[in-house]
C-alpha cells in the first residue's frame, strides 16, 4: 500500500467492531457508510452536524436539569408519602454510610452524563465559531474517555425494576423528573448512535484546515 504522506492516513478508516481496513469515500448528505465485513456503521455525512449537535446537547441539558430538580417517583405507603429525586438518591447513600457506592453512583448517573453534555455543547459551540484548536482536542479526548461511563439509561431501567418490586406494598405515582429523564436518555442514545466521535474529529480537521488557508 502506498501513501503520499502521513496525512493521507485520514482517508483510511478501521472498523471499530471488527478492525477491517477501509478507504473513506465521499457519500451523500444524510447517508451513512457501513463496514462490508460486519455491517457496523463506519461514518455518516451530515452537512449540518454542528447545528444538530448543538441543538441536541442543549435540549439534553435542559431535560437533565428538569430530571434532577423534580421528584422522580412518589409513593404512598402506610399513609405516608415519600418521594425521591436523583440527588436525594445519591445523598441518602452517603447518609447511610455507603460512601463508595454513593461516589460510584454520583459519577455514573450525575457527573459523567452532565459532563458529556456540557462538553458536547462546548465542542460544537467552539466549532461553530471556529476557535479553540487545542481546547477542542482536549475535550474530544476527555469525551472518549468518559462516554462509556455514563449510565443514565441503566438507571432508568433500575427505577422501573425498583417500582415493580414495590407494587402491592405502595401506591406509586411517576414524577415529572421520570419523564424528563426518559427524554434525556433518548437524546443521549440518539447522540451516541448518530454522532461518532471520529466524525467530530474529521469536522475539526476540516474547519481548522479551512482556517489555515485563510
Amino acid at each position, binding site marked *: *500500500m502506498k501513501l503520499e504522506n502521513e496525512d493521507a492516513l485520514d482517508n483510511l478508516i478501521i472498523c471499530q467492531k471488527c478492525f477491517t481496513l477501509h478507504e473513506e469515500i465521499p457519500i451523500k448528505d444524510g447517508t451513512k457508510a457501513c463496514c462490508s465485513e460486519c455491517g457496523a456503521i463506519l461514518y455518516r455525512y451530515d452537512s449540518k452536524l454542528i447545528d444538530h449537535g448543538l441543538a441536541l446537547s442543549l435540549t439534553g441539558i435542559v431535560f437533565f436539569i428538569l430530571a434532577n430538580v423534580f421528584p422522580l417517583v412518589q409513593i404512598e405507603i402506610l399513609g405516608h408519602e415519600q418521594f425521591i429525586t436523583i440527588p436525594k438518591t445519591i445523598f441518602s447513600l452517603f447518609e447511610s454510610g455507603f460512601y463508595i457506592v454513593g461516589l460510584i453512583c454520583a459519577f455514573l448517573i450525575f457527573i459523567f452524563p452532565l459532563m458529556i453534555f456540557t462538553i458536547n455543547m462546548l465542542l460544537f459551540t467552539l466549532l461553530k465559531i471556529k476557535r479553540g484548536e487545542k481546547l477542542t482536542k482536549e475535550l474530544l479526548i476527555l469525551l*472518549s474517555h468518559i462516554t462509556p461511563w455514563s449510565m443514565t439509561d441503566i*438507571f432508568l431501567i433500575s427505577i422501573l425494576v425498583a417500582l415493580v418490586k414495590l407494587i402491592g406494598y405502595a401506591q406509586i405515582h411517576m414524577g415529572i423528573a421520570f419523564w424528563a429523564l426518559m427524554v434525556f436518555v433518548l437524546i443521549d442514545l440518539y447522540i451516541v448512535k448518530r454522532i461518532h466521535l471520529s466524525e467530530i474529529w474529521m469536522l475539526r480537521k476540516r474547519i481548522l484546515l479551512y482556517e489555515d488557508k485563510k
Partner: protein
Amino acid sequence: VIEIDEDKLIRCPVCGAVNIDKNKENSCRRCGSKIYHHRSFSTEKSWAFLITAMIAYIPANLYPMLITKQFGTEEGSTLLGGVVMLWEHGSYPISMIIFVASILIPVLKFLVLIYLLISVKYPIGKDKKVNKHKLYYMTEVIGPWSMIDVFVVAILAALIHLANIQIIAGTAATAFAISVFFTLLAAHAFDERLIKEYE
C-alpha cells in the same frame, strides 16, 4: 511517498484515527494518546483489574444486598436470595432481569475476559470459530447493565425510609459496585489489537 504494509496500520483506541505501527511506543498522530505495544504490560493491567473484580464478587454474594427493617425485625437478603424470593413471589420477569444482570452477566464477563486474556497469550481458539472481536464488543456493551441491582438498592433505600419500615443497603452493595467497576476497568484495559496479532 511511504510504502507500508496494511497490517502495519493500527487504530487509536481513543480517537479512532489510523496510525502507522512503528513497533515501539506509538503515540497517536491526531490526539497524542499512547498506543501501547508492550504485550505483557497490556494484559497484566487487565488481569489485575479482573482478579480484583472477581475477589470483590465473592463478598457480593455472601453478604446481604438489601436489609429490610420492619417493626423492629431485621431481615437481610443476598443477591441469589433476592432472585429466589422474587421468583417465589411470582415476579418472574423482574426475577429474571435481576438474575441476568447481577449473576449471569458478571460471571459471563469474567469467563469471556479470562478466555480473551489467555487466548492472546497462548494459542487457543485459533480456529476462528469464535469471533473474538465480536465477543469483546458484546462484553463492552452488556457489561454496564450489571449495575442495575446497585441502582435498585439505592432507589429502594432512598424511597423506603419510614419509622416502621426501612430498607437499607447491605455490605454486598459496596462489594458488588466495586466488582462491576473493576470488571469495566479490566475490559477497557484489554488491548483489542492483541486479538488481531494472534490470529
